[in-house]
């Protein structure tokens, strides 16, 4: 046993550094962060701190890896990216993360972003990367087929409320059979949840999933499954649906633009409208944390501070559309004047900035938010894929939440 532990320890220290004094850092990200070029640049400028990126597909996979290795006390990267919705749960484990508080960085982030990463003791646990103001991505060619307006200014006038959005959807699916109105019920429900002040938990962290606002979201999403592809968001079929005219519109936070472009490679007709049903909404936006188990917390902190600086996040925005959460980056010309060729040269910077301004509600997210959200999405999926009637699925959701304790 001792031998086993020793050899494991030897492995662990191998990737921490090498004999010539170079510090080797790893950064674990999920989905797309747009960091590839930035890391290359850092490595060229900092020969003594070399960074490697580890990417996984989705946050849910990253989360399991994170918790497994937090529990075992080793194996995490020096820098771990955390999805915004999970930050409250991460802060409940503050001891396992390095306090990144740095007075020099005061005022770098939007207030609500900085607050979301600061725990009860005033320690900043994570550096915010991006924010997720949402617009609507749409296929202008498919809207044209349905005889609907296709110009992004006209599209933006079509729906300001969710009722309008669903009503337009009914018209669309009647005109274009075989193509859904939106990409997934999960995406739509998440967009709606992000406009609710207390979706799952009250301000004192009491779980309350039987509130009228949540019920409203539930009924809207499960009552309109005919408008959805009925596919699981992020699944193989969902990815394939981008190439098969699977749907016409979807809720698009900035970071989603890169996902759409990647999945819909070669498909023409995508555009991005400056509108969101029910007002503004923020979906996601991540944080970089440094686990205490890192052997080089100082260097990791330095790198995390560098890559989340406004200048770098502007470049990440240019790479994949992740909208910066740094105050100075918001009026950077590179952001405001940015357009995206894939989305019919839409002025994505200007649109996302306007979408960010429209955000009026920051939902309260307690430590169980991420777990309850997962159960909620499963409940939506059960109705979507036809395995349950809505009432039955809702009951299962309630019992799942009870299991969370």
């Amino acid at each position: 046993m001792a031998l086993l532990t020793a050899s494991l320890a030897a492995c662990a220290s191998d990737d921490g550094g090498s004999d010539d004094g170079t510090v080797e850092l790893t950064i674990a990200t999920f989905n797309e962060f747009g960091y590839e070029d930035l890391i290359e640049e850092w490595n060229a400028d900092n020969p003594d701190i070399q960074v490697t990126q580890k990417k996984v597909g989705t946050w849910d996979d990253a989360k399991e890896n994170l918790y497994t290795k937090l529990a075992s006390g080793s194996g995490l990267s020096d820098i771990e990216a955390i999805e915004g919705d999970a930050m409250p749960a991460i802060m409940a484990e503050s001891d396992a993360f390095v306090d990144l508080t740095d007075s020099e960085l005061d005022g770098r982030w939007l207030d609500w972003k900085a607050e979301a990463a600061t725990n009860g003791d005033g320690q900043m646990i994570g550096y915010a990367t991006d924010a997720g103001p949402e617009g609507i991505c749409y296929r202008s060619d498919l809207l044209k087929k349905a005889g609907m307006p296709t110009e992004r200014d006209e599209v933006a006038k079509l729906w300001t409320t969710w009722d309008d959005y669903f009503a337009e959807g009914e018209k669309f699916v009647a005109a274009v059979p075989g193509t859904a109105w939106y990409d997934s019920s999960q995406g739509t429900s998440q967009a709606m949840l992000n406009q609710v002040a207390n979706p799952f938990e009250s301000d004192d962290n009491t779980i309350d999933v039987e509130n009228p606002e949540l019920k409203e979201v539930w009924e809207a999403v499960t009552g309109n499954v005919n408008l959805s592809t009925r596919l699981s968001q992020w699944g193989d079929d969902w990815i394939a649906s981008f190439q098969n005219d699977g749907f016409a519109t979807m809720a698009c936070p900035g970071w989603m633009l890169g996902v759409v472009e990647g999945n819909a490679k070669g498909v023409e007709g995508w555009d991005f409208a400056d509108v969101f049903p029910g007002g503004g909404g923020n979906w996601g936006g991540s944080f970089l944390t440094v686990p205490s188990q890192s052997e080089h917390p100082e260097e990791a902190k330095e790198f995390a501070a560098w890559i989340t600086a406004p200048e770098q996040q502007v470049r990440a925005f240019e790479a994949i559309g992740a909208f910066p959460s740094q105050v100075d980056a918001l009026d950077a010309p590179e952001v405001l004047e940015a357009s995206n060729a894939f989305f019919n040269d839409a002025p994505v910077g200007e649109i996302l900035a306007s979408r960010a301004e429209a955000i009026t509600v920051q939902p309260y997210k307690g430590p169980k938010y991420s777990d309850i959200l997962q159960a909620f999405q499963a409940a939506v999926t059960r109705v979507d894929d036809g395995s349950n009637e809505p009432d039955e699925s809702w009951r299962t959701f309630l019992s799942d939440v009870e299991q969370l304790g």
Partner: protein
Amino acid sequence: MSQRASTAVRAGQGSDPLPGPGAPDGRVRLTLRQRLSRWDAKFSPYLYVSPFFVVFLLVGLFPLAYTAYVSLYEWNLIGGQGDYIGLENYRRVLENPYFLKSVVNTFSIFVLSSIPQIVIALALAGLLNAPLRGRSFWRMGVLVPFVVAPVAVAIIFGNLFGDRYGVFNEMLGWIGVGPIQWHVDRLASHVAIATMVNWRWTGYNALILLAAMQAVPRELYESAALDGAGRIRQFFSVTVPMIRPTLLFVIVTSTIGGLQIFAEPRLFDETMARNGGSDRQFSTVTMLVYDFGWRLRDLGKASATAWLLFLIVVAIALLNYALTRRLTGQGEKR
């Protein structure tokens, strides 16, 4: 029998007091060298087999006992050990609606995979045992699926079994069969997962059975042929009875593997939580262990589930053992 008798004789010799001069108590005083050599004969065999048992103790028995210990406590993945709560975790698991569902799923996938797997492996081994041109090529060929990593298998089969844009549904469409909801329909999802398992393990089992077939004495086939038995008759009346012990070995190992299935259903899952479908249509017991331990971060409940699975596997293994003894017993009588 002879083995046991000789041990008894040797043991008798060792303890028999031999009368001799210079030993008032009736014992012969042995030199150190003699004593060492006696110990050597007595204990060395145990020493030689000990590495296996030491390793087993470390990686088998210790985790087993520790899991039992953890299952009696409130135990958070991050927070660690909490209060002693006795069998409460077991009660919670047994009351959880997903437990029974997972047990049923596990058995269903196990039956759908093990039975076709062994039947096809047997047929395949029979074919490979026949004189073929390029024998090595065919024999290695059946092992290729086994070499492919399960993750790659899952990606390939994920594309084949897509609910909407999958290859199989496309092909079913040509013959007018409606699309099958591979990830939603409970039985269909079990069939899809069993296919993945079979694809991976059939060739491997076929090679083990083939090795056993090669050891069957040729004379038996000659006499069978003289008695007028055709190839098929020879296979069922000579080959199959002769390889029965190996066949049982394959059945036992595939049972144990089948009951612990994890990677295939988990990777097959398209939902974000990866719990085995939105309604746990294909959640298995090991997936539930993972769900409790790593998603809900309750190691106490995860350990209790793991122990329940262990008991199920032991029960099935005992059943297999009884079956093995009966069947091989018959084999000896013949």
